[in-house]
């Protein structure tokens, strides 16, 4: 605990106009740990720091220093220059970054046309099989995997994929997780959870299109 620096100025002295910012800065730079200086934006050329820091801030920092006792030598020697970790793309920032963004209500609406067995609900990663028809709000059918005759249906297979992994549009992933085996549902999906502002260029789906699917979940593995 030896060698702790002592306060040079009282509060009144600090607030006085006679005390130049430069002096306070110099004191703090001379006595504070590097990380303290960094956090309070007091690193660098005194002239420059004086430009950017207000007197009030400096007073606060000065007092903080003595409160927290983060003097030079109280923390392990740190790297002065932060190395650019070029290839480590997975480096996460040290502070907590984004607050959880409230996305609002789900962007799809489901109405059950035929009930399922209410027992076999797919979980994320399960493979599901579906027959479906997709249409736009005006009724145009843009996609279906249901063939026209029953005979042909024997030849065709239901669409099969792993649900909940972002392989399909979000509206599908979310809706299917709420369906049980055997269920047929009508699912209306807002563009945000379908193809959004872009739509599907070169296809029948225009920008900002709400999509309506009739989906029959036939298998869950």
């Amino acid at each position: 605990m030896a060698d702790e620096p002592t306060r040079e100025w009282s509060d009144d002295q600090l607030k006085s106009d006679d005390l130049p910012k430069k002096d306070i800065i110099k004191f703090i730079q001379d006595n504070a740990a590097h990380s303290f200086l960094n956090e309070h934006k007091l690193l660098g050329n005194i002239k420059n720091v004086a430009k950017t820091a207000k007197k009030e801030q400096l007073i606060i920092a000065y007092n903080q220093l003595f409160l927290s006792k983060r003097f030079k030598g109280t923390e392990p020697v740190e790297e002065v220059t932060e190395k650019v970790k070029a290839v480590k793309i997975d480096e996460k920032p040290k502070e907590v970054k984004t607050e959880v963004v409230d996305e609002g209500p789900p962007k799809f609406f489901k109405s059950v046309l035929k009930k399922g067995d209410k027992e076999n609900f797919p979980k994320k990663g399960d493979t599901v099989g579906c027959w479906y028809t997709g249409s736009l709000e005006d009724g145009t059918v843009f996609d279906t995997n249901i063939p026209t005759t029953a005979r042909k249906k024997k030849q065709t297979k239901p669409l099969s994929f792993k649900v909940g992994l972002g392989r399909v549009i979000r509206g599908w992933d979310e809706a299917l997780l709420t369906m049980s085996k055997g269920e047929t549902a009508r699912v209306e999906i807002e563009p945000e959870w379908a193809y959004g502002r872009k739509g599907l260029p070169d296809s029948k789906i225009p920008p900002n299109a709400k999509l309506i699917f009739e989906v029959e979940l036939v298998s869950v593995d």
Partner: protein
Amino acid sequence: MTAGMALEQLSDVVQKCQALPDDNYTTEDHDVFTIAGRTCIEEGHSAQVLSIVLDEKNQDIVRSMGWNLLPPLIQVLLKKEDKNLPQCLAILNHLLQTCRPKELLIGLLEQLEHDDPNTIAESIHLLLNPLQKVLLCLGSRKASSLGMTLSSVLDQVAKLPLPHTKEQEEDDVFLLCRCCTDLTDFVRPFVHEARLNTLNCNENTENMEGEPGKGKEDELQTELLKFCMKSLNHPLLEVQLRDPDTLAVSPLRNFATEILKSLGAIGESLPALVFQPLLKRKQVPGFLEEEVRYPKESLASLAHLVFVHHLTADTFPSVFSPVFILRSNMEHINLLLSKTDESRIQKGLELYEKSLVRVENNSLPADLLEIKTLLTVPQNLVKVMTMCPQHDLRTRGLKIFQLSIDKFDTEAKYNFLQYMLNVSHHSGVEGYIIKNIKNQIDHALQPGNSNIWFEGVHLLPLLRKVFSLPDGPETDLLQYLDRIMESLNLLRYLIIRDKVTENQTGIWTELYKIEDKFIKPLRVGVNMSRAHYERELHNTMEIKKNKVKENSVLSVSVGGEELPNMTSESQIEALHSALHTFDMIESVLVRVEELAEVKETL
């Protein structure tokens, strides 16, 4: 042997054999029949041969030995103007009906092989129909023979010159397009048969994940799959397909469409094929077979046909998420862009562009960069941008590079730009990246756009990388010019834009370091370079004045070979140009320092 003799010999051997059961024909009988028969046809006596062949008494002989007559017959038929054409055609048709399929097959296939493109194309056109007839006679044993036939035909097609322009496809001078059309017609009944087979054993759901639902591998389907995969590679990966509004009727586009439809008919799911790089297929014993069964280049070709040309788009499900499609296509793009072949590079660029365009700007998250191809593809793209001989491809590559940056969200942009700055190793590309960084900072400084990546704590490490000279004061300023100029532009921008009192970017607290590590060495470098070049200029002008034998000041070698020396005039020009460049660098440096000083004293 004369024609007359040949005819006699033929009649004799036929008469002799009429009396024998066919397993008693001797080798000599076979030989005599073959040689005599061939000579007769070659000499133009096909009418007589026809009557011998049609004679009811000779059918056993014909069945046994008739196929040996194929070579000269086909020669005549290929010639087209021969007056013996009708008779030869009649002989051929009769042989096709009478002889054993396996032997006919061998005989016909032999006649496919040629070296000159014209004969190749005509042979294919002539022989595919007979081959089809023969194969259909083989019943359930046809699969391997069909495979052999398809393989041979594709090998021959591979020898034909490819059309490169729309006009060339229309003219089809080397008949490649006609061969493709012929192939489609040829393969149709077999695809149909395979479709029926699929229908019959379609109890299990074969899913997108590609797990084989049926136990016994259907051989016919396997051969057709091989054919489709091989076609996808050649000719389809090599040619450029035209869209309907460019070329209304395109045999090549039709061929491609038929291949895709055939894949569906034999039970292959197009989504499963196209997304294969991302789907964990069950490790079937001998999983290397998967690579052979579904060659990577063929799948890349398929992805291009589906996503760029939208072939069979109405049967491809419109439910997959654009990000998933992008992730999957990156594997194909990586393969295509890593070649030097310009046709593949072009397709890689097209596929990349189409995949990016479906994604919203600022939407791709940073964790996507953990996927290897998201980093290797841009590096391959840089190679295209800087080294591809074709100007259009370089330009397009750059446009797509910018497009890819725009799709990332802010954190991902930060990581990506930092990564590319480190690995590009090309001054022009680095300059372009630094310009992007400047744009991002500008964006962040606008009200409401504040973010932690292009301001504040995270920006500084990036800036330190930007404001650095690779070799300190000894850096070759001309080589790194693009990068240096963009860095200076960025510095000037920051000093002007960021108020000293606000210091949002941190530039003001960083400036003293930048002066130390960047500005000072740059100044030194400029002075040194200028002095050096001024001396060289002086020397060169002296040499010119004295008309002393020119000693080269600069020597340039490309690919190990030294280029001829520049003339004095050119050298002087080059040196002046270099000096001008140093002036330019210096003027920006001076401006930067002026601005910094002004702001600091405010």
